[in-house]
């Protein structure tokens, strides 16, 4: 599959083929601009490939109409480097918001949200605002928000990019725990420490091409 952005001189991803099984934990690594983040965008149906197909959860999303996208996205959780929390809402409200805007009732939120906040290790901090939480705690809230709807896939775009090494490892333990519940985790990173410690499948991308695909791999 190939993705070229308009005005780009070369494809962001050039004739890439890769398949990820259900329940896998995969790292996409590579230098900046290698096309790692484009993979996340393709999986989210934020962009569509110029050539080839993207199949997610058994569904071909390449030709998916844009009005079907919202429903499709409910099966995917997403975590980013910059957390993307709503600053005027508490940890609880941030997670509950994700449920309420897809039509879940407040009663469902009251039952599920404390559970998932407990799971990510934020029990007792539900009513703190993002600015009252550390970076690691904010990322936990983001993970809770991504996971609260029990998605089949969790996408993580450099989730440890803004965190110190110790906190990063805690977040990785959390993602690992989520992976053990059967959720497929796809993580884009250039944090070599983490990749080396986790010993999971590593797909290395350079200049839009896959140069290495290794089970239980290490960074570089």
């Amino acid at each position, binding site marked *: 599959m190939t993705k070229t952005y308009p005005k780009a001189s070369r494809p962001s991803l050039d004739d890439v083929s890769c398949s990820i099984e259900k329940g896998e934990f995969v790292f996409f690594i590579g230098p900046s601009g290698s096309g790692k983040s484009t993979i996340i965008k393709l999986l*989210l149906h934020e962009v569509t490939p110029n050539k080839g197909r993207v199949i997610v959860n058994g569904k071909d999303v390449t030709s998916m109409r844009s*009005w079907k*996208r*919202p*429903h*499709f*996205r*409910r099966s*995917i959780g*997403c975590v980013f480097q910059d957390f*993307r929390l*709503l*600053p005027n809402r508490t940890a609880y409200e941030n997670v509950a*918001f*994700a449920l*309420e*805007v*897809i*039509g879940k*009732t*407040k009663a469902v939120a009251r039952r599920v949200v404390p559970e998932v906040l407990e799971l990510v290790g934020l029990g007792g901090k539900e009513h703190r605002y993002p600015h009252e939480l550390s970076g690691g705690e904010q990322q936990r809230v983001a993970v809770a*928000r991504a996971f609260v*709807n029990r998605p089949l896939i969790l996408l993580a775009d450099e989730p440890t990019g803004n965190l110190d090494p110790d906190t990063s490892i805690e977040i990785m333990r959390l993602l690992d725990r989520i992976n053990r519940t059967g959720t497929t985790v796809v993580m884009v990173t250039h944090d070599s420490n983490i990749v080396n410690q986790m010993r999971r499948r590593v797909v290395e991308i350079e200049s839009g091409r896959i140069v290495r695909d290794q089970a239980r791999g290490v960074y570089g």
Partner: protein
Amino acid sequence: MRLKYVLSEVMVGLWRNVTMTIAMIITMAVSLTMLGASGLMYRQVDNMKDRYYENIEVSIFLKTEVTQQQRDDLQGKLKGDPLVKEVIYENKEQAYERFKEMYQDAPALVEAVKPDQLPESFRLRLVDPEQYKQIFDKYNSEEGIQEIVDQRRLLDKIFNILGAVQNIALVAAMVMAIAALLLVANTIQVAAYSKRREVAVMKLVGASNWFIQAPFVLEAVVAGLIGALIGFGALSLAKVFLFDGSLRDLTELLTPVGWGDVLVMLPLMAGAGALVSAVTAWVTLRFYLRV
């Protein structure tokens, strides 16, 4: 629950940007008042046409030196004409009676006129009042005819003036509508910008498009409806103080403006206000939110 969420978002949205909201409502109100006024004018002209065209006649005035023969010939022809429904002959005496009645408020004028000075005439009612031109062409060259007058022509002048005023109101409504439209677009952009984080999260977690757009669209619709209500209020005030007040003599001479006609404008104005706002907001969101 979702409805409550959407409604509270609408209210918060309108308050957050209250100066813009007020500007939006005012332009909307002025535009819709103009629209309502031109609608009212349209109905008014319609009512007047109904009322006056019923009684409209073509008058054929005869020369003072007309002969008995010419008069009888003309009457015979008119009676046999398929375009003519009814012919009434009016002699000098009858014309004088009518004149006295018409100008009873001006006795000096009535004094000055003698029955002889008034022309005899045939008053025609046509099968189709639109066919005046044929009648005119047919009888204009007949002997003994002074003048053929179509009363409709006189009324048409009044209708033309009203029509022109109506068009001016409509143009003003349209110009104001463009201003209102741009304000709605701008307000929605500002609202979308101030909620960009929420919108980004909603898109990410898969909130449906209508759920993301509804608060913005409704915000515009609510402003449009408030504008329509204010416009309707202005129109009602115009009825009370203008049509029934300072312009009373004119409106009674033509046809009075009824409350029914004014009330009919409310759904028209509300519908136009809500629709224009909703479509503008929705189109703006398509470009600005790309949901």
